[in-house]
């Protein structure tokens, strides 16, 4: 049996032989004819062949399929290799057939698998790169819709291609970073400009593109944005340039004004940041807000303030120069012509039609001219002054001569006499003086071809007038002398009729006319009168009520005042101006007080010798005179005899007045102040009934009337205790 199993074909052959043998047996039995038998056998043979043929066909087909698969795989492999740009792997050398087809296929299939895998990897790489490229290009293009369709070319997945793509990607990445940088730069520039201009950076940027506003968000780096940014920068830069120009103009103006007006450094310091940029170029101005609208307005305001100041100063200067001019004219007694010119000039300056500097120059020119003229006039003017003062003296002399009492020996009379003497000699020189002056003036006029004016009046005419007047006066005097002589005769003849000498008539108005500026004489007289009044000074001790004790002093002063009424009071009354006549009575008082006040002081309670005169008593009084006890004033009226006792600081009393001491209303018994013997009879007190307790009218009045006086006890004085009040006085004054 085992052999059967080993060879099935043999087995099949055996089975076929047996089956044939069986069939012959069957056929023999059946007795089949040979033909049938042959037929049957042929049939069987044919059927067998058929089966064989079918099987071979199948096998053949299978082989073809296998071959096809191998070929396909090989082709795919080749394709992949070529796509990836690799050398194709030749597994099967054309001639040497290494194995069966199935082996071959088995060999080739993993290769194909691997290559497929590699290919997909490669493709993924490509896809990545391409994706990136697309993203970047999208960013750069600034639009999202384009080149999304770009796909990977399957056919070419070679490394070369990949490299190429990578290069492309790199290029794009670089461009992107460049653009980012550019945008950043632009933004930075924009920011700095905005700062300088004082413009809100965020808002400006948002206007360019909303996305630029967020500092953290992804930056848009498309061409469009960059262009817009550049445009914005350009625009702002122009603005900056404009403003810079403006500021620099302002700064220049400011500097000029400072220079002109010597503006103090402190004031300049505030605008140092403006002026320091005066020559800066655009890129040098980086300080924030230097060019903001507010700042420029601020600077503008300052400049306009300075300008206003300048114009006012200018005006001031013009006026000053003008007054200088007037002063010179006044001093040299010239009349300033074209009076309205300056007023007009001022108006013109105010309205801005004329440059103040020009006006100033004009005035200065005028001043120079006037000065020059004044210099030439100087000599003559001096002579004129001399002449005029001589005229004054002449006037005074005339008045003096008319004074009947001029030889009364009052105070200062010798001075007046001396003056009169001098005046007489001066008057004698007057005609020659006038002549000399006239000839000098004429020479001057001839030299210059203009008239010499004195305060607008021609000097020559003044001189002429004076000479005429003088002649008239001379005439008058002569006539008077004649008349006097006549009168003298008349008086001598008819003394009984007239009784006394008639006063000489006073030709008062004779002298007044020719004098232009001669108030001097009367002024001088006034001051003379003043000295006779012994220079009254206002005195703090001036009390309107003077004490009776000083009456004699006062009377004496009044006498003194009365003794020379001519020199004192008349001088004052003739004073036309400058002296306050109303102040006179006060002054009179004040100097009463001065004379009474001797510098002597005495401490309270120190015993005074009885020989001390009443004068010292008064001295003590005056100690508290300045605190003016009006109270004691009233007491004095009531008790005139006891007035010495009033202030406590004078503990001195006369025994006679103590009888009338108002405290002791009732007359008391005989005072026995000497010590008594202890053993003998006691001594009665020097008592007196005191008034009823509550109000003591005198004392109460005292306390109320003098609230500002603070009394201190000896202890307080010794301790240096001072009441913590401001109004008190440290002097010890009892009520």
């Amino acid at each position, binding site marked *: 049996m085992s052999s059967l199993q080993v060879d099935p074909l043999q087995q099949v052959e055996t089975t076929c032989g047996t089956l044939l043998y069986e069939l012959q047996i069957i056929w023999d039995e059946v007795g089949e004819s040979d033909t049938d038998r042959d037929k049957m056998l042929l049939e069987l043979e044919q059927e067998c062949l058929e089966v064989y043929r079918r099987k071979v066909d199948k096998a053949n087909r299978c082989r073809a399929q296998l071959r096809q698969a191998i070929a396909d795989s090989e082709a795919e492999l080749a394709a992949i290799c070529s796509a990836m740009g690799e050398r194709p792997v030749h597994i099967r050398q054309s001639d040497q057939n290494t194995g069966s087809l199935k082996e071959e296929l088995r060999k080739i299939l993993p290769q194909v698998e691997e290559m497929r895998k590699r290919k997909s990897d490669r493709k993924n790489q490509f896809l990545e790169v391409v994706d990136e490229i697309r993203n970047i290009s999208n960013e750069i293009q600034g639009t999202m819709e384009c080149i999304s369709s770009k796909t990977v070319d399957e056919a070419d997945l070679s490394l070369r291609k990949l490299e190429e793509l990578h290069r492309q990607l790199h290029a794009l990445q670089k461009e992107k970073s460049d653009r980012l940088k550019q945008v950043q730069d632009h933004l930075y520039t924009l920011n700095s400009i905005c700062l300088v201009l004082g413009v809100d950076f965020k808002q400006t940027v948002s206007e360019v593109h909303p996305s630029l506003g967020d500092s953290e968000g992804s930056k848009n780096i498309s061409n469009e944005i960059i262009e817009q940014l550049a445009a914005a920068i350009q625009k702002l830069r122009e603005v900056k340039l404009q403003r810079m120009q403006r500021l620099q103009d302002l700064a220049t103006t400011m500097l000029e004004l400072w220079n002109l007006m010597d503006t103090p450094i402190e004031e300049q310091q505030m605008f140092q940041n403006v002026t320091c940029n005066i020559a800066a170029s655009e890129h040098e101005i980086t300080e924030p807000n230097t060019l903001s609208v507010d700042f420029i307005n601020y600077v503008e305001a300052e400049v306009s303030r300075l300008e206003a100041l300048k114009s006012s100063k200018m005006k001031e200067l013009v006026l000053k120069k003008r007054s200088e001019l007037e002063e010179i004219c006044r001093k040299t007694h010239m009349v300033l012509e074209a009076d309205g010119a300056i007023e007009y000039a001022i108006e013109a300056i105010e309205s801005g039609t004329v440059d103040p500097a020009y006006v100033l120059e004009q005035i200065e020119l005028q001043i120079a001219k006037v000065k020059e003229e004044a210099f030439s006039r100087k000599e003559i003017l001096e002579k004129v002054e001399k002449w005029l003062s001589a005229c004054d003296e002449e006037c005074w002399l005339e008045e003096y001569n008319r004074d009947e009492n001029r030889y009364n020996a009052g105070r200062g009379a010798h001075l007046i006499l001396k003056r009169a003497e001098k005046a007489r000699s001066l008057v004698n020189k007057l005609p020659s003086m006038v002549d000399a002056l006239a000839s000098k003036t004429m020479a001057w006029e001839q030299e210059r071809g203009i008239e010499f004016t004195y305060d607008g009046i021609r000097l020559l005419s003044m001189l002429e007038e004076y000479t005429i007047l003088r002649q008239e006066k001379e005439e008058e005097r002569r006539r008077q002398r004649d008349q006097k002589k006549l009168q003298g005769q008349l008086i001598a003849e008819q003394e009984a009729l007239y009784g006394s000498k008639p006063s000489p008539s006073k030709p008062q108005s004779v002298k007044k006319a020719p004098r232009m500026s001669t108030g001097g004489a009367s002024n001088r007289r006034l001051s003379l009168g003043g000295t006779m009044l012994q220079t009254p000074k206002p005195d703090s001790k001036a009390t309107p009520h003077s004490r009776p004790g000083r009456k004699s002093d006062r009377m004496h002063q009044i006498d003194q005042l009365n003794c020379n009424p001519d020199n004192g009071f008349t001088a004052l009354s003739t004073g036309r101006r400058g002296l306050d006549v109303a102040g006179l009575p006060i002054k009179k008082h004040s100097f009463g007080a001065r004379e009474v006040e001797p510098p002597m002081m005495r*401490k*309270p*309670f*120190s*015993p005074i*010798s*009885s*020989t001390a005169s009443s004068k010292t008593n008064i001295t003590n009084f005056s100690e508290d005179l300045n605190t003016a006890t009006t109270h004691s004033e009233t007491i004095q009226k009531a008790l005139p005899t006891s007035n010495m006792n009033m202030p*406590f600081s004078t*503990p*001195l*009393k*006369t*025994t*006679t007045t*103590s009888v009338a001491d108002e*405290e002791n209303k009732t007359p008391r018994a005989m*005072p*026995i*102040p*000497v*010590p*008594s*013997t*202890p*053993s*003998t009879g*006691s*001594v*009665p*007190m*020097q*008592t*007196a*009934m*005191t*008034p*009823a*307790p*509550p*109000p*003591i009218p*005198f*004392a109460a009045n*005292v*306390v109320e009337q003098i609230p500002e006086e*603070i*009394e*201190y*006890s*000896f*202890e*307080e*004085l*010794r*301790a240096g*205790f001072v*009441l913590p009040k401001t109004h008190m006085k440290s002097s010890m004054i*009892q*009520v």
Partner: protein
Amino acid sequence: MTFVPPPAPGRELSNPPSDGISNLRFSNLSDHLLVSSWDKSVRLYDASANVLRGEFMHGGPVLDCCFHDDSSGFSVSADHTVRRLVFSSNKEDILGRHEAPVRCVEYSYAAGQLITGSWDKTLKCWDPRGASGQDRTLVGTYAQPERVYSLSLVGNRLVVATAGRHVNVYDLRNMSQPEQRRESSLKYQTRCVRCYPNGTGYALSSVEGRVAMEFFELSEASQAKKYAFKCHRKSEAGRDIVYPVNAIAFHPIYGTFATGGCDGFVNVWDGNNKKRLYQYSKYPTSVAALSFSKDGRLLAVASSYTYEEGDKPHEPDSIFVRSVNEIEVKPKPKVLP
């Protein structure tokens, strides 16, 4: 009248203060003498034995002092303080302060309170038994119209004399306001005020040699009794020189009183009979303070310049204790007509 030379001024105490004596007082129990001075000290003497028993130094001139009992006393100073002095231990503590120098002090046995008067224009009452610390010792502060110059007590009555010649009379049991507000009858600054021992009134002296005798009762009959008299004056060639009357001291038994003036004299007066009883011989300088001992047998006289004429050379400050004869202080009945 014949002039009999007055007896010797008395025994001078040794160790007197080195500067002006502001006050001196005899104890109510013994012959101890408490003396306050401008030399910032308070001294306790045994007057009968002439011994300095103790000394307290203060921060400023001591303007017044008084006894509490024999073992303690009080002092007030220009440094604004009110102090309690304990003699046995020689210790002192500050009862409290005023806002200005304190001028005078009195201890009331009736109220058990210490009364101080100051130039800060207030009167303050203190309870010296209270524990230390101003919150507990200060009983009350009473505003015065002016700086307080002098105080005097009798029973429950307190008389306060101030600058501006005000006189306030208080009842110690109701210090909220004065019982009477008066004005000095004298025209010049008050120097000293002392109550009569019988409690009916007070004597008030002024800087102008004059003493007023006043009565508390306001009835017309009482007020009719009041009067003032001149004293401490010198008559010289028809002129009076007046001196301040610095001190008044009543005799504890007879009710007569002594006055001391800047003339250096001490006079003893009988107020009822309006008589001067005695004049002691002149002391070297102003009489600044006077005090009778408890039984009236001794009179302490502080002869000490009171700076009435400012700083000037003057006699040394000294304390005299003299025995008092009855005849010098006993009132003499009026001679019947």
